[in-house]
């Protein structure tokens, strides 16, 4: 009897213990890095009175680096770059951590306002950057630019602008991107078509292609809301008065009552009528790989960042060119603007080693890092001269030219306004494409969503 009771108690205790350890298990791996960082701090405590900011000689510096590229080739590229930096600077240990886009957004939003904020982390420009900065834990880097004009001078101004708020710079821009129409040169030549510069010319081209037997003159995977938002962001920018747009994209003052918004959705409806029935049931990648790359659809709205991916699925001899989104005849926005935003790295102002973090970022955001980005991942660096004949495809060079010649970089729609607004916009525009909603009814929903924010 006694034995049974003892056994029961032991079992219960064991179960409870297993449970508790299971609970704390998740936390311990996360805190391991911080614990290591703290150990470093304690070691530094002695020297701190003499030399506060720069890490003392021989002291072990631990930097937590968090980004959103767990996939190759970028993950390996970062690993190699970090290893190289650590070899050059034996006193520095960089702990890299990464998770993919949406999960990254969730996690960084959760930790940025806490003490767990990573020392260096990646950020989109626009509203996302603002949200990060609003946490109060992002360090301003304006003096870093001022102190080192040689380094700062090599970074594309348009990229810096995406991270400048109230005159202060908050990030070191890493990559830049742009969204343009890619077109099949051969098909355009066969049908004697010119690259359109205005909306009516664009529609005329689409009509001509349709007449020539192309069922889907332009293709998009409308299952992906973000792909729709890329269109709408550009179309709003081209159509609306910039002042109205700025007021509406601001969560505190957004109304979306200008009739031009309905015009934009009317044009969206018109455009989707050229995309065929299938577009609502496929995603962006399918559209790119099985429609554009096969020549079935001659035009597609793509990012420069997709060049490398596209090249992998193109048949021999496929030639493509770029043209920026055409201007609306009645549009009030700048038709020379290019939709596309930079991404960059921020430094937390809670970091123990601000100088070391800056040193590493300057090393990373350089011609060397930029060249690695282009050669290994096919992305365009924000550093001047990082993309050149030796490491980029001809398309990359042409893309750089388009980015540099753009009057301004307009942010992605989902970086430009609040998620409550763009989610409704994306779902509404999708519903327009399948004939479920009208431009007027969608704008009514958008107005309601915008009003709920203030």
């Amino acid at each position, binding site marked *: *009897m006694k034995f*049974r*009771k003892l056994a*029961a*108690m032991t*079992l*219960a205790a064991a*179960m*409870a213990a297993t*449970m508790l350890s299971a*609970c704390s298990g998740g936390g311990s791996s996360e805190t391991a890095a911080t614990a290591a960082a703290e150990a470093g701090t304690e070691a530094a405590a002695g020297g701190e009175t003499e030399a506060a900011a720069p890490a003392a000689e021989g002291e072990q510096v631990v930097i937590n680096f968090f980004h959103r590229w767990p996939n190759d080739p970028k993950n390996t590229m970062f690993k190699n770059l970090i290893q190289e930096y650590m070899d050059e600077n034996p006193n520095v240990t960089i702990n890299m951590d990464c998770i993919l886009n*949406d999960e990254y957004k*969730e996690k960084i*939003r*959760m930790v*940025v*306002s806490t003490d767990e904020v990573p020392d260096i982390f990646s950020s989109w420009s626009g509203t996302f950057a603002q*949200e*990060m900065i*609003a*946490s*109060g834990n992002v360090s301003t880097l304006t003096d870093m630019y001022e102190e080192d004009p040689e380094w700062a001078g090599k970074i594309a101004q348009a990229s810096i602008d995406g991270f400048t708020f109230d005159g202060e710079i908050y990030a070191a821009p890493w990559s830049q991107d742009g969204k343009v129409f890619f077109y099949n040169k051969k098909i355009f030549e066969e049908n004697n078509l010119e690259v359109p510069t205005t909306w009516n010319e664009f529609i005329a081209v689409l009509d001509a292609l349709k007449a020539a037997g192309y069922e889907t003159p332009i293709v998009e995977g*409308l*299952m992906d*809301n973000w792909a729709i938002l890329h269109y709408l962001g550009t179309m709003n920018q081209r159509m609306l008065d910039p002042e109205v747009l700025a007021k509406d994209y601001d969560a505190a003052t957004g109304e979306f009552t200008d009739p031009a918004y309905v015009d934009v959705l009317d044009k969206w409806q018109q455009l989707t009528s050229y995309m065929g*029935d*299938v*577009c*609502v*049931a*496929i995603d962006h990648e399918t559209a790119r790989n*099985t429609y554009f790359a096969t020549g079935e659809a001659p035009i597609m709205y793509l990012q420069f960042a997709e060049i490398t991916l596209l090249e992998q699925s193109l048949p021999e001899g496929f030639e493509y060119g770029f043209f920026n989104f055409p201007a609306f005849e009645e549009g009030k926005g700048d038709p020379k603007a290019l939709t596309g935003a930079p991404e960059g790295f921020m430094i937390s102002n809670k970091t123990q080693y601000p100088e070391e973090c800056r040193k590493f970022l300057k090393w990373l955001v350089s011609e060397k890092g930029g060249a690695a980005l282009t050669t290994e991942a096919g992305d365009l660096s924000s550093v001047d001269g990082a993309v050149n004949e030796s490491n980029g495809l001809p398309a990359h060079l042409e893309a750089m030219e388009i980015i540099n010649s753009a009057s301004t970089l307009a942010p992605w729609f989902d970086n430009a306004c609040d*998620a*409550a607004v763009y*989610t409704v916009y994306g*779902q*509404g525009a*999708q*519903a327009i*494409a*399948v004939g*479920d*909603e009208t431009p007027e009814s969608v704008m009514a*929903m958008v107005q309601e969503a915008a009003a*709920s924010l203030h």
Partner: protein
Amino acid sequence: MGCVILKKKRNVEAFLFTVPALLFLGVFVFYPLINNIVYSFQSFTLSSATKEWVGLKNYQTLLSDGIILTSIKNNVLYAVISIIIQVGFGLVLAAVLEDVAFRKVAPALRSVYFIPTILSMTVVCLLFEFVYNPQMGLLNSFLEAVGLDSLAKVWLGSKKTAMYAVIAVSQWQSTGYIAMLFIVAIQKIPKDLYEAAEVDGASKIRRFFYITVPQVRQMFFVTMILTVSGAFTVFNEPYILTGGGPGTATMVLALHMYQTGFIKNNMGYASTIAILIFVITAALSSVQFFSFGKKEDA
């Protein structure tokens, strides 16, 4: 006297055994639940440092939110179809497999029907994306092959078919599981009931309705709760297959909650939607619990 002490000791032992489970429930079920109720009266985002009290504002939004209506409609559709196919058809399937005529092939068929259940939902959904693909998908290709071209559709891209296409995936996956539960219940039915009925000249259909169905009533209760609460908390299928689209045609409550919380970054209102889901599933479960429980007494 000794007997009483022994009983008490046993009670302590019994209680000790429940402690880990109670602790587990407390930490992972009751604490978050209560917390969630508090959150539903607040307004905050994932990155906000403080939570602002907004009283009943989130509940007002809930009442005026059009997507909630669409979602509930879709969830109800999900539940109705799931009951008909999974519970109804699952029971028939179980009865057929347990029939003497199928004795030889039943084990093999049971495994075949059960296989979808052990596949990951994500894998199943990705598979069905290929099945539904309008260009090269199996479904449309099949329809064309048998000369029914006119029935080929853009399954996931049309508001008319998208919800049914999503629901069908769950039926394909879960019917085998429910059938398996019924098989277990049917195997527990005393054989002499069937033998007596057979002697009395009852047909197979009559035996099904007058012996099998009443005898598996308990299992009915379990499977109904499983399918209905499953239907009101469904998330994976619409999330992976359509993301709630086209427009909001395939939006369900759990997906709306997720999008509100993690995409629109409005955690307070998302908590309110969570409360709604909780109330609906709790109410449905208790209705089923009490209605089935009473029959048991009678």
